[in-house]
């Protein structure tokens, strides 16, 4: 059974702005899938429809056998704990320390007040430290997040998502604010999480060459529609040209590693 199926999903912000129209695909457990497309193609909206941070206008999202659209508030929270999310701008609470931000990944599992007051069990703290070691941040545990570099902040974001013990990781432009070196580090971590921990990853990228380097399967989105869905090796130059518009396609394919961020 597929871990995630998206069937006929459309999202209209209003009559004129159509972010997604009739998007369908399925993700199997353990896959590493990259969604590519230019800015404004609807990639971010698509990810947010999966964990219902954005409500779909029509269509059905099924995650792990659950119809996401029909869940009530409590069921939705429970479902979200199983879907980790990583953001372009990291979305950390900058004034808090690294450990506190990572522990936020446990909130969905806790009673409202235990979570509100920030009471975490020994087991959870130990796990948080383990996750931080996994992303190489054991030195920065008590540092405030506004003192970290971009790459470090994103690793905190990854650690927070991992602490949720997710089945699926949604990554929304995880490297768009990072320099090439940090980008590689983050993409390598994501790949490692996928292969070693077996967590399914769905990653939004606008950098084609990075998608080509990391993805097993690519979904191409253009103006809210899926225009390509298949293995990375089957993606042709023409399709890329189609997704990005022809001139941009040349630049993207020709420039290789220089075009991160």
């Amino acid at each position, binding site marked *: 059974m597929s871990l995630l199926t998206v069937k006929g999903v459309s999202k209209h912000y209003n009559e004129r702005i159509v972010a997604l129209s009739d998007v369908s695909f399925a993700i199997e457990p353990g896959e590493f899938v990259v969604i590519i497309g230019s800015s404004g193609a609807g990639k971010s909206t698509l990810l947010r429809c999966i964990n219902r941070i954005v409500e779909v206008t029509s269509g059905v999202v099924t995650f792990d056998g659950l119809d996401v659209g029909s869940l009530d508030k409590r069921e939705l929270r*429970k479902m979200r704990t199983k879907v980790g999310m990583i953001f372009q701008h990291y979305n950390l609470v900058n*004034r808090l*320390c690294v*450990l*506190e931000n990572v*522990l936020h990944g446990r909130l969905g*599992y*806790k*009673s409202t007040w235990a979570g509100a007051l*920030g009471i*975490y*069990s*020994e*087991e*959870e*703290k*130990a*796990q948080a*430290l*383990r*996750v931080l*070691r*996994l992303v190489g941040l054991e030195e920065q*545990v*008590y540092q*405030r997040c506004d003192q970290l570099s971009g790459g470090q902040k994103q690793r905190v974001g990854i650690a927070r998502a*991992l602490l949720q*013990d997710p089945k699926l990781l949604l990554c929304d432009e995880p490297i768009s604010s990072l320099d090439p070196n940090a980008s590689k580090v983050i993409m390598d971590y994501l790949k490692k999480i996928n292969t*070693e*921990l077996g967590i399914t990853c769905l990653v939004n990228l606008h950098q084609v060459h990075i998608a080509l380097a990391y993805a097993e399967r690519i979904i191409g989105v253009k103006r809210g529609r899926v225009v390509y869905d298949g293995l990375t090796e089957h993606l042709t130059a023409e399709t890329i040209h189609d997704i990005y518009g022809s001139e941009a396609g040349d630049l993207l394919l020709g420039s290789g590693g220089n075009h991160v961020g």
Partner: protein
Amino acid sequence: MQREQSLAPLWQPKVRPRLGQHRALNKPLDKGTLFMRLTMAIFLALTVLAFASFDYQGLNIYNAFLGTIANFRVLMLSPQLTHFSLVEAAEGMLITLSLALLTTVIGAILALFFGLLAAQNLSSPLISGLIKGGVAFIRAVPTILWVLIFAIAAGLGSVAAVTGMAFHSVGYLVKAYAEAFEEVDSGVIEALRATGASWWQIVCQAVLPTAQSYLLSWTFVRFEINFVGALAMGAAAGAGGLGFDLFLASAHYFDLREVGFITYLVLAVALVLETITTQIKVRLRVQT
């Protein structure tokens, strides 16, 4: 409610973490957090002390609250003018608004000049420091005291009110303007200086155009403050205008309905002014 789950092992750690070391969220208390907690504790302690030491004058607080609610109902539901005509009230409002406008204009003109001299990137450290210290002093004295002090020499009236309030406006606006000038990119000033531009040229061609939305926005904020100030001066220093009418209605005629009417009038104008200020901020996209 409790859905605590045992955590599945993420991977097999080579070394078991030493749990004892991390019993609580024992992050070292940084200075910022410490200061925030201290500040809040002091606020709370002083508040308790305040309530303990208030001069209640044997007041029955419960009755006073009930009375206030009853009064408020009269005030809000049946506002009516009795001692003043509508024309007189409108005239009072016009005087109050005029006082506020005059004060703001005089304050802004003076503040523009002193603000330029107070901005660190446009002035010498000595002059900047002197002016900033001077306006800090002027700001520290409540407006009403400036007005009353000027009234000793000039007599109660519009001259004392405008001079006193303008004084405080200058203090406020010089600080705001100087900060706006200091925000101007030093590279721009450097570029103009490199072209051989003089100080006034740099001010008029780079500094003022860059800072103008901030200046405008702060000036309108000050106009709002001065409107409330002009009202207060009328009530407390007899400077005339609607504030004085309010004082008479309340403290001399004990007429709740009249107080209600004047309150509504003030509220309406204040809401309009606030809307304009907000709109200006939105249009100019500045944060004050």
